[in-house]
Structure formats: C-alpha cells, structure tokens
C-alpha cells in the first residue's frame, strides 16, 4: 500500500499549475504510489555505505570562462511571448501579492 494520497497529488498539481480532473488524480495517485513503492525497494538494498547520488556521472568542476557571447535579438527573445508591450514581455497582473 503506497504512502501517496489523493490530497498530496492535488497539492502537487496545484504547485505545478497543472489542472487535473478527479479521474486523473485517482489514476496518478495509483501510478505515483507504485513509483514510490519501487524506490522504497531500492532503498532497502542501499545500505549506509552507499552514498546518495544526485549525479550519475563522476564529473565535477565543469566551468565556462567569463566571456560574453551574442544574445538573442529582442525580436527573437519575444517571438514566443503570448503578449508583449514594446520590448517587454507582458504578463497578467499578479493578484495575491502585497
């Protein structure tokens, strides 16, 4: 039995700004539960001598020199914008602040 609840899925959907129907929430609760259960099985195998891994490749210190390269043109940058005003992106008012 998974530890994931429908409330958690609805909460995550809200945080991720994804609009889910009640059926989708039910299905995702089952799917995500199975994934969590599977990961839990892996964790049973991983003992304390196995370090947590965020990056599978044994690479560190990949840096870029501080040199300017050309940017997009303003037209290119704004070409995918749903709305613009002059050279700026135009977005809906943010209501739940202040």
């Amino acid at each position: 039995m998974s530890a994931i609840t429908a409330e958690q899925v609805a909460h995550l959907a809200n945080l991720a700004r994804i609009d889910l129907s009640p059926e989708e929430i039910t299905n995702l609760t089952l799917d995500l539960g199975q994934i969590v259960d599977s990961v839990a099985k892996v964790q049973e195998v991983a003992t304390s001598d196995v370090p947590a891994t965020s990056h599978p490749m044994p690479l560190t210190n990949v840096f870029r020199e501080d040199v300017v390269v050309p940017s997009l043109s303003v037209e290119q940058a704004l070409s995918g914008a749903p709305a613009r005003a002059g050279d700026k992106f135009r977005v809906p008012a943010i209501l739940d602040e202040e």
Partner: protein
Amino acid sequence: MAKPELMDYDKALELFEPVLGFEVHVELNTKTKMFCGCANEFGSGANTNTCPTCLGLPGGLPQVNHKAIESSIRLGLALGCEIAEHSRFARKNYFYPDTAKNFQTSQYDDPICHDGSLTIELESGRLVTVEIERAHMEDDAGKLTHMGGSTGRIQGADYSLVDYNRGGVPLVEIVTQMIEGAEHDAPEIGRTYVAGIREIAKALGVSNARMEEGNVRCDANVSLRPRGSKVLGTRTETKNVNSLRSVERAVRYEIQRQAAVLHAGGTITQETRHWHEDTGITSAGRPKSDADDYRYFPEPDLVPMAPSREWVEELRLTLPEPPAARRKRLQADWGFANLEFQDVVNSDLMDAVEATVAAGASAQSARKWWTGEIARLANAAGVAADSLVQPAQLAALIALVEAGTLTDRLARQVLEGVIAGEGTPAEVVASRGLAVVSDDGALIAAIDEALSKQPDVLAKIRDGKLQAAGAVIGAVMKAMRGQADAARVRELVLERAGTAESGSVE
C-alpha cells in the same frame, strides 16, 4: 492602509528582547551571467541580453561561470567562511513571472561557503560578531514593472511588464545565524552589518556594491520574545530593504510594531513584509503558505563543484586588507578627527584621498578638496566625485597652492579647467593665465596708483584706521584680475602708505 500601532522604542526594549537575522544578496560584477554568456549589464534596452538558457526555453543548457565561483569563494573567505569541498546547485521551484524558468537555480544543502563571521564596530565602540551560517550562489530574477492601477505597485495593477536582462545574473546570498543580545543596538547592528558586507564586496572588487542600484539588497528578519522567556517569537522577514538607512529604520519599525501587537495580546504572523521607503513603514505581504513548498532538488543539468584546496589557498592570497583594519590604519596615518574621517568614508572618498596622498598631497588638503569643492561640483553634475578628477591631478593642484603659485580661489578655477579636460593643472594655469602675480613690482605699481586715486583712504590709513585699507586692496585685486595673494597685497598697501608717510617727513 491604516498605520498600525507602534510602541515607544525604549518601552518595547524594556518588555521584549529582539532577535535578528539578515539575508544579504550581493550581485556579482562578472562580465556574463551565472549560467550563460549573456552580458551582465542593463544599459542597452529591455530584453537585449537574453538567450534560451536564461529565458528557460527548451534546449537551453546552463554552464557555470568560472569567475562567479571564484568571486563567491573570495567573498566567502573574506567573511571567514569554510569553503565546501563539495558543492552543488539545486532548483527552487516556484511560479512567478520574473523567473522565466519557473525555478531559481540556487543552492540548498551544499552551499559553496559556510560558517563564517563578521565583526562590526558600532558608533559606541561596541564590537559585535555576527555569525554567518552560509553564503550560497544563485541567479537573479528579471525586473517587473507593474502597469495600471493607481499606485504603480502590484496592488491594483492591470498587468505587468518583464525585462529579463537581470534574469540569470550571479548573486551570492549571505545568511546570518540568529543574532541575540543586540538589545538597543539592533537597528544599528543591521545597518553596520550590511555596510560591512558592502564594504568587503567592494574591496574585493567582486561587486559594484551600489545599494541604490540594487547591487546589494537586504532582507531583515526580526522577532521579539518577552523578557525572561527562552522561546523564540514568530519572525517576520522584511524584503528588499535597499539602503543602509532603511535597514536601520525597518528593524526599528518592526520592533516597535511587533511589540505593540504582542503587548495588546495579539500574535505575529510569520510572513514576508514589504518596506515602504516613502512612509517608513512595513506592510504585510503574503503569509508563509503552500507557495513556499519549493520542492528543492539537485540541478540535473549542472555537475557538482569540488573547489580544490590549492585553488582556495591561491584565492586566499588575493584577499585585500580587511576594510575595517584599513580604515583604522588610514585614519591613524592621516591624523583625521572622527568626524573628518567619517565625512570621507560616508562620501565614498577613502580611495580617492588615499591615492591623492600617495601622489604627494597632505592628507588634510586632499580631504578638504575631495569633500569640499570636488564633492560640490560632482553633486551639481550628478556624478561621483572620484569620477571628476584624477588623484594625481589634484595632488599637482594642491602642490601649486602650497608653492604660492595659486590662491584657493584661483585653484578652484584651475580645477574647473582640469575637469573640463583642458589638461594638467600646470597646463591650465599657463593657458588660462591664472598664476598669482608674485612680482612685488607689479603689485606696488598697482597699489601706488590705487592710493593716489583714493587720497581720503590714504589719509585714514595714516590715521591708523587700518580697516580702511580694504578699499585699496579691493581695487588692487581687481586690477590684478584676482590673481594676487590678498594677504601680500595688504602687507604692501600698509607698507606703501607708511612709506609715503615717512617720505613726507624727509
């Protein structure tokens, strides 16, 4: 909005103990952004410095700016921090239109610098050591402009405009431990701590460190607990307090506001508050809520960093003298009184005075010129004083005054010429013909002429009414077009008047 009740500051301190914490964001002055090669500059029009990476478009791939890591490590070292042997970036997920990627690339459980401290000195001489929990790297957000509505603030806005030029610019966020025992000094500790961070960032050259430009920004955490209690009170976080004076005012305000709420039996809501520079108050922002569930996870597109110990030690060798120590040394070297020295420091002219002294001027002359005439001209022109004239030029000008070639008044004219790009002080003296007339012969001729034209004055001087000489001195200075040493003219006038008298006896 209605002004909340405030408790008298002294009474608030009598009833409650303030506990502080600060988050200071320092914007690095690298040539490019944190994770892409777009220029880190804002002057050339909205959205001119963007690319798929900093706009969060599909296919964008971040790459870490080497210089930004170097600057962060140097800043951490200057704050006495440990530099992590292993550090990585994390995604902080939230939706807000100033963040095009829908996450901020920040650091969570492996910050690059941790466990440092900064000791600050208050005006009373009290030393306070502020413990630093961590200094981590992150990228900045774009700039929002709220349109419509009546106030130009978010409230009532019809829509907002976004310029992503600042999006992706490297920041170091310096987070203090809880500061207890601040007592009455709490507001001053806030101001002095932020000033100290700013000063260090500037001395290191890792940031332009101008608060008015937003290069250094402060969030101030304040909570109160009743005297005798060991339990921490609920804190508020006042965001983006962007001048040293505002840090001081915002801390003081929150202490007074929270004390009034608590004393009236109310509770403090854990929330973000906004500082209003114009009215000097804070107002409630959003409470801590679901929106703060940031779901941090390690950034999969960036590999971890493991700064080698050799590199860290190399960078340690590049650290400049700590600003606080340098200030003490320079004040002693220059022999300035506290107020004189503060004037120089507050006007951001310490470097300028130091360079002028190094070029041969006396410290007092250098101070007088920088904080006087040059600051006045810079203020009128709306530019920084140290951008007007080279320290070496000023030192040369001061040398001309001390040699008697120029009076202060003439020197001010020469300075204007130097600032106008007419050449070195000596060249301006020559081209404008401004040197003091030190040839007594020329002066005596002018004096004799003036005396002969004003026999009544001559008579008064001979009667011992020496102040009458002023009229003659004025006439002579006018004849010399101001290019004479008034004190020397006065001497000569009295001498000539006297000579004439003795001459009449012969």
